[in-house]
């Protein structure tokens, strides 16, 4: 009577799908709701990081073009 453990569906009491949504329209539909809980704060930090990276890339590119680096 040994059952596979991998196909066990564990009951998630909260339910990750939003209330009432029956079938997703596309694979990407509602993707924002299915992402893990990210706080706005950590997202802000990530965005800031990317902006800094962007500026850095441009600066480095310019400096290299002028043979400074």
């Amino acid at each position: 009577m040994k059952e596979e453990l991998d196909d066990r569906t564990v009951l998630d009491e909260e339910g990750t799908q939003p209330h009432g949504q029956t079938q997703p329209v596309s694979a990407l539909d509602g993707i924002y709701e299915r992402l893990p809980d990210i706080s706005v704060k950590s997202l802000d930090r990530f965005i800031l990081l990317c902006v800094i990276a962007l500026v850095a890339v441009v600066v480095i590119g310019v400096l290299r073009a002028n043979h400074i680096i």
Partner: protein
Amino acid sequence: MQKSAESNHAAPFDVKKFMSNNAIIILIVLLAILTGCTTKNFFTTTNFKNLVVNVAPRFIIACGVSGCLITKGTDLSAGRAVGLAACLSAMMLQSVDYAARMFPWMPDIPWPVALVIVMIIMGAFGAVNGIVISVLKVPPFIATLGMQTIIYGLCSLITNNQPMGGYKKSYLTVASGSVGPIPYLMIFAVIVGLYFLFLYNKTRHGKYMYAIGGNENAAQVAGVNVRASLVRIYILAGCMYALAGFLVGAKAGGASTATGQGYELEAIAACTIGGVSANGGVGRVGGILVGVLVFEILKICLQFLRVDPAYTYIAQGLVIVIAVALDLRKYLQKK
């Protein structure tokens, strides 16, 4: 007893919010100013024309894709479709006395006729996309990915992988000519922009599109014919790719199976920067234009600054990531 309804209008001007909503645009404007001050010939009419001529076809493609994105879909076949359109145009518009004419038997076709024919053909491909997505319920990502490779294959077949050139003068003039200071390409883009502005804001099709994107189930209950709307959206997208391919071919003076490769990524990214949300139901023509401009100005600035193109790629990638993150942030804030 009445629970207050929070309105979306913030009374005082919130600097932080303005910055975060428009971060990318601010950065690019700064970059442009910087480039203009440190290099020659940046703020010239030639450069401006250069910008316009590059923006025009990309704007047209982005408009086409926007409908798919607004309804929570996507169209990964856009780039290859542009390529096929360019090749089809080439086949019909090569100069009659060109030695290496691909189809010597092809009659001399006026370019407007060729354009219409190409639009019909690419519109048909779009219809297939639309039907597969709305009737067969295949996820748009997969459906259009498949279409992408099919179109590429077809293009290879009909062109026999031979690049084509030797266009007739009237076709080349479409891309190089202008009315006074205004390039023909810009006129095409303006017409497309106005058409989409009208379609999205003043027609039933536009309202149904936003409704489907906002909440497809609710739109269905409200009596919207979801299938018909989706098919129309993808057909229109196909027609736009046709127009863009036609123009791209004229501009380049040639076309091959490599034409258009990867254009969809930039188009989708431009839409995202311009406010078309991955969550659906939102997107404006003005925003799409801004998104395309951001990409092109970034490219031109870095060119002027003689930066190695590799850095430009990385920079573009970062811009895309920031755009998506900002979109996600807007969504999370509403929760």
